[in-house]
């Protein structure tokens, strides 16, 4: 890593409007934080916390539902995790009917387009499919529980 590398990284940081950038590899570590991002804390500084604007929920907004790309910073450092979020409000079911086996369980390998669960909304059963190939790393919601728009449903370990 030389100055040119750093310049290129900084350009990327600017281009992508990043607030922070961190890279660690073989004894190398780079960490960049842009000025002005503390401003976001002004309304509600994490420790003091008073103020009408609530502290941002600990669950980062993350990728938009429907396009749950890899979200590494979200879950861990070294693993590529895709988080499948609920695209609708409704009731979460892990299996096609009460007595049937779950569509997927932790450890299962799934492929893109495979049904992971059902969300019932307005008496309609909506199948939620995986957006990627990988291994089911987590199931966030219990069978039969309500989910809101944007709630996390599954984590898929990609590749």
């Amino acid at each position, binding site marked *: 890593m030389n100055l040119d590398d750093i310049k290129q990284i900084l350009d990327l940081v600017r281009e992508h409007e990043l607030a922070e950038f961190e890279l660690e590899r073989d004894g190398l570590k780079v960490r960049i934080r842009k000025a002005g991002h503390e401003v976001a804390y002004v*309304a509600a500084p994490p420790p003091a916390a008073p103020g*009408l604007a*609530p502290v941002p929920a600990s669950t980062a907004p993350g990728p938009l539902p429907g396009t749950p790309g890899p979200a590494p910073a979200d879950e861990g450092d070294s693993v590529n995790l895709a988080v499948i979020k609920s695209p*609708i*409000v409704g009731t979460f079911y892990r299996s096609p009917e009460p007595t049937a086996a779950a569509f997927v369980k932790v450890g299962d390998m799934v492929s893109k387009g495979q049904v992971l669960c059902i969300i019932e*909304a307005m008496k309609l059963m909506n199948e939620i499919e995986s957006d990627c190939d990988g291994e089911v790393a987590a199931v966030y919601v219990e069978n039969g529980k309500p989910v*809101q*728009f*944007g709630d996390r449903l599954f984590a898929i370990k990609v590749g």
Partner: protein
Amino acid sequence: MFNKVLIANRGEIALRIICACRELGIKTVAVYSEADENSLHVRFADEDVCIGPARSLDSYLNVPAIISAAEITGADAIHPGYGFLSESAYLAEVCEACHIKFIGPYPNVIRLMGDKARARRAMKKAGVPVLPGSDGPVSGEDQAITIAKDLGYPVIIKAVAGGGGRGMRVVRSADELPKAFKTAMREAEAAFGVGDVYLEKYVEQPRHIEIQVLGDHHGNVVHLGERECSIQRRHQKLIEEAPSVALTEKQRRKLGATVVDAAKAVQYANAGTFEFLMDPSGHFYFLEANTRLQVEHPVTEFITGVDIVKEQILVAAGRRLSMKQSDIEVRGHAIECRINAEDPVTFVPSPGVIQAFSVPGGPGVRVDTFAHSDCTVTPYYDSLIAKIITYGRDRTEALARMRRTLEMTVVEGIKTSIPLHLKVLADPDFIGGKFDTSFMERYMPEKKKAGGRLAETA
């Protein structure tokens, strides 16, 4: 009585409905889009459900998401507020199918009033004065020319499914008609998916007068007097007041009684507003009926002491109206200014973070708002940030209170319409009560001849 009401709305009106529910001891469910996560209506509801992304079509207009939110929280009623799904006969029908009470009129009444040509016929039949017109969709240009000749120019072309001024054209001579007819149809088709238009006599210099009604599901209907909403800009009401300076007591009683009879005729239940044009010689013409709570309901609450939102909830739950017509006594005068996040000269919206927010107290002041210091006004929804309503023993006192309240209101970080309101409040014609719906044209950035007529909005 309901145990839990879901509020299918956002902003100040969601908070207003939470207030009413709390006073009645009813639990509330807020729904919100991702853009409204930190809103006060989410904070003060007993439960909340995120129903979609910022775009209204995917959240506040998303019927399945709202019904599902009601189902997963066990809400037994839905209050739609104003705007969004408040006049959706479809939502009202789905609610019925799902055994959730829709806090509003019956779906068929919503549907009837939503079809302007049908509504017009129904009102005419019920004895309500309507403008001479085509009495239904006009099939083509030739028919339009014939009808317009009968009516006498100027005439107005309106979309059957209309609202917000779209699909609407004033025509002052036969020459202009063919082009205006085509444009109106195209606009109506684009805006509402239905190109049907109809013709009406056009009233010059009209005042916008509307009658607030309340009905229960036992056949009782009362009216709470009129509001005047002639101060509007491009069909958007800006200042509303009650009572109107233009009405005599006799006119008020007569128009009120006519509306109550018509509402009963169509089996109207819950809150509703019947809008009229009043011509310079004091004749009224039915414009449309809004089958929901209106933005400007607080002026009526001030002069009558009736809590319209609580009445809505109570009648939806099957209660009888808490008052008879003879119990309703109008006292004093009230005025509302809609404070928008916008440039007061160019009217360009001004979203952003409100850095400081403060409104004065004192007697006769009411402020309905979702705003507070450090809150964000998003660019996704309408620009209304606060409704300031003042009351006085008479109009002079109400206006003086409004002036000092606006002067002592602090909104920093974004631009607001307050300076524009202060200009209007200082206008001798406004103070003298001498205005019609074209009044705001004098404050428009370009003095376009916009027709300045009709208000199709809350």
